[in-house]
């Protein structure tokens, strides 16, 4: 089980990112728990200054804009 956090104040991109993570995880058959972090304080504490950001099991893997599909799969399989 991987814990994926999607950081973003709730703009459209952040929702798209969440959906992309869900899709990629389902495609790969990886069991994930997705948590959306929308509180600006928590986003900043995580070291994210351009949203959306993604962390997997506590490790930040992406910030700023939508992730690339193949990169996302790579992170989820790692």
């Amino acid at each position: 089980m991987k814990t994926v956090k999607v950081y973003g104040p709730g703009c459209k991109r952040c929702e798209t990112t969440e959906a992309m993570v869900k899709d990629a995880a389902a495609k790969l058959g990886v069991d994930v728990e997705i948590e959306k972090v929308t509180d600006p304080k928590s986003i900043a504490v995580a070291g994210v200054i351009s949203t959306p950001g993604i962390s997997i099991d506590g490790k930040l893997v992406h910030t700023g804009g939508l992730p690339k599909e193949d990169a996302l799969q790579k992170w989820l399989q790692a």
Partner: protein
Amino acid sequence: MSAETIAAGHRQKNRNRILKWGTGLLVTLVAWGIAYSQLVPFSEWVTSLLPVARDSHTGEAIAFFVYDVPKVLLLLALIVFVTGVLRSWFSPEKTRAILAGNREIIGYPLAALLGVLTPFCSCSSVPLFIGFVSAGIPLGVTFAFLIAGPLVGPVGLGLLFGLVGWQVALIYLVFGFTIATVAGWVMGRMGLERYLQDWVRELNAGPVGDVSDETFDIVDRLQVGVDQVRDIVGKVWIWVVIGIAIGALIHGYVPEAMMLRIMGGDAWWSVPAAVVVGIPMYTNAAGAIPVVEALLGKGAALGTTLAFMMSVIALSLPEMIILKQVLTYRLIAIFVAVVASGILATGFLFNAIL
């Protein structure tokens, strides 16, 4: 298969990809150029189809609208594409590292410059603000960055260039940049840290995550440009149409004498009025510039018009509401007052010398 054959295969695939994108880009640019050169015949043709006299008020307004909508959309797509590609070399993380590593006095103009080059959407301004301040970047430098971003945006400059002329675009660039730098510096001198929301002052943000494993080649960057065009043009076209409709009404119906009385250089109160009227108006540069084009065409003074445009773009209520999460009302008021002063000064200066 040996490792070498695989590598050669990769290189071949990459070459094909670059070739494909290069061709696509070239074809698109040529099509763009042809479309752009046909704007006047196209608008005259459409207007002639309608049952209105070309030189009537309605005819003038319709011709303006039909000419400007495709023109602005074409220009917008090109500007957004080029900007998207250029900005793919920049990121808020890199900008933060650069600004945190420089002396404060260099920081102001540098922040204004990076504000123009760094990609960030307004929905990110709160985490970005916190990230900057907690990395030890002075508050004033952070403000210079946040002011310059929207105020001197490439879309505004590009459209001014295409719709009004390079002289006005250049003046706008120089003064927008100066306002951002000076306003940031003034706020830096004021020692405003105590007016941040309490939790922001106490916060120590974590280090910026290392996400450098994301590698970009030139095709990825072109892809960013294309995505940006789809994203931004898809989002702002409605503002463009509204802006041009207002511009068309001004162009067709507002008498020049009235425009001179309200926005002419002799009416001293027109500059502050333009700034005040501009604050609650919220649109992006793409919507504002067709209005500017029409105002200038009808004889509005350049200073007044610039002040109006800067106020609409740089001072907006939604942005203040977003910033309320990190700034106290007092700090927001100071922010607005300092930026508005800069805009006023610009407006008065141009009305005085032109």
